[in-house]
């Protein structure tokens, strides 16, 4: 009883705060980075000073924005943490569950790097297992690589030496973009629909002709459709789909 009284007495004394709900960040078709705030279905999208990004991905704690030949690391508020030179072209970006570590795969150079503890670290991944379609960082700290060949597989790559620790099938070959979550959930574009497949192989099908998929942060995924729509997907027990307004 004394414990609870103490608990309650202290809790009342220390009120919290109230702030703008942050959804994350999104990338427009032309490479503009938008800040997304509000709540599901009542998004407020605002332009940022970041333009011309060729790829981008955001977690709750990090943002990775790939430009032509540089890559920037942002914090949760979108502030610059690091900028480094990087191979030209687009990049595949994934995170760990906590969102404080990022894996980046440069498609043209076929190199895999890791942003962890404030620095970049190359992962000696040979990439000869097939076309890399998505990356993430698993619970054990290994880099998860979704590889597309005749079929889609998820490969666990050891960070220290690039050795393949395991490989598991993940269904048929994708027809479009793929996104990989730290818990091995896959978002796979196939035949004009988006399949959300959990690590056990079960999942949902969402009628969405996604042309590009990226992490927005806070459990949200951005899908850009062939018709130019920006869609925000909330990954929950049932995937929720919302339209993302263009930033003004």
């Amino acid at each position, binding site marked *: 009883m004394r414990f609870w009284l103490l608990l309650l007495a202290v809790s009342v004394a220390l009120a919290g705060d109230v702030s703008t709900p942050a959804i994350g960040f999104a990338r427009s078709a032309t490479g503009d980075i938008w800040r997304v705030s509000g709540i599901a279905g009542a998004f407020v999208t605002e332009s940022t000073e970041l333009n011309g990004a060729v790829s981008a991905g955001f977690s709750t704690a990090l943002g990775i924005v790939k430009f032509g030949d540089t890559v920037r690391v942002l914090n949760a508020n979108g502030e610059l943490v690091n900028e480094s030179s990087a191979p030209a072209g687009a990049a595949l970006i994934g995170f760990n569950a906590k969102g404080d570590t990022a894996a980046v795969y440069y498609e043209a150079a076929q190199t895999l790097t890791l942003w962890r503890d404030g620095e970049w670290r190359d992962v000696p991944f040979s990439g000869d297992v097939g076309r890399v379609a998505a990356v993430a960082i698993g619970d054990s700290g290994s880099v998860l690589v979704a590889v597309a060949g005749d079929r889609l597989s998820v490969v666990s790559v050891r960070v220290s030496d690039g050795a393949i620790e395991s490989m598991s099938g993940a269904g048929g070959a994708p027809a479009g973009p793929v996104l990989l979550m730290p818990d091995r959930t896959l978002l796979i574009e196939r035949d004009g629909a988006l399949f959300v497949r959990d690590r056990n192989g079960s999942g949902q099908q969402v009628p969405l002709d996604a042309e590009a998929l990226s992490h927005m942060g806070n459990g949200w995924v951005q899908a850009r459709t062939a018709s130019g729509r920006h869609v925000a997907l909330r990954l929950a027990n049932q995937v929720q789909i919302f339209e993302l307004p*263009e930033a003004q």
Partner: protein
Amino acid sequence: MLARWILLALAPLSAFAQIQLVTFDGTVEKAVGAATDLGTVAAADAREIRFRAHNTSTSPVVLTKLTASGTGFTITSAPSLQSIIAPSNFIEFRVHFSATGEGSYSAPLTVNTAQTLLRATVVPAATVSVVNDVVGSVLTSDSALDFGRVQKGKSSSQTIRIGNGTNSKLTIQSCAISGAAFHAPALQCPIALDPGAAATIIISFDPATASAQTGTLLLDNRSFTLTGVGFDPPLPKPSIAFESPLASGTQQRLSVKLAATAESSGMGTVTMDFQPAAGTADDPAIRFTGSGARNLSFNVNEGDQAGAFPAGVDTVFQTGTTAGTIVFRVKLGDYNEQFSFAIGPAAVSVDHTVASRRVNDLDVSITGFDNTRTAGRFAFTFFDKNGQPVQPGAVRADWRDMFTNYYRSSKTGGSFTMRATFPVTGDATQIAGVEVEMTNDAGTTRTTRVSF
């Protein structure tokens, strides 16, 4: 002495050669000779010829005389006398001829010292007139038969009477109508007309496009200009429809319905305005997702029963998180319709609640919206592992001032994330869950139990 003689000898010739007359058909100039024949002209018809008088000298010439002296001939569109014709330049005028009596007509046309003899022959011809309810009006070949404005796809017709007012039999050997929008199915030649007899034909104007259109009715060598303007049918009255009644915090699909099938194409716009309820402010989340703005264009094509947005038959908009009235204005054609929808005050809506435990703290985070912006009264009830409320029950807090300050500068409408930290001095792991009650002016909301 010799030079003076030469100048005197050349002076009259020079003056005569200063003006050269030509006819002009709109494209080509043709030098005129001693006589200019206007040809055969039907009685009561008219003929007009464009002339140009060129100054072929190297000095300016003053226009001192411009006459056509003869019955039936008149000069029109001429510059005034004393006008200056610059070297290598010209003036233009027209000679109009019209006469009712049969026979040959002539008149000298004089421009300063240049001259040509105008000639025309008037022959008997049928009288072409428009028949209407009041009085028929005679058509001449220089007048146009105007059908006025006719809606595309509709038709307007006029009855033409071709009468023989002469004492001899007339035969119109050839007749035709040109112009895609003009039709006269019963027009057939030859048309033989005894003295006093008449034939009627019906000409219709059936515009298939929305534009000014011309045609010609040809009766032998006489032509009558037909004119008309086709216009698009008015676009139907628009209205809007939603999937479900409007409420805060939702994305809705809006479609524009048409009161009738569109008979023409056009573009419209839908505009959203928001009138926030008292005590609240504008909400930037209220907008169309397709444009990211509060207006959006749509198209209507012929045959459509609804507007077509860039993304399809409907478009998505956000209702925002603020109570008030959303006003949609739909502009289409002549219509400017307005539709107002009230978004009523509602209790706080919770998007998600997160409860987390640190060593000596319990954190509770609630993200949601308050469309009245009067939230701030909270009650936290903690539960132990057996699901029993922890004594002494709900911990109440009044953070209305904090919320008021937040909403004063909020750029996301009524949405908020509230974080509260509860320090624990004992074994925090004994606390298993929390329920939060939030009260605003519209009511009270209680979250489901959230586990730590």
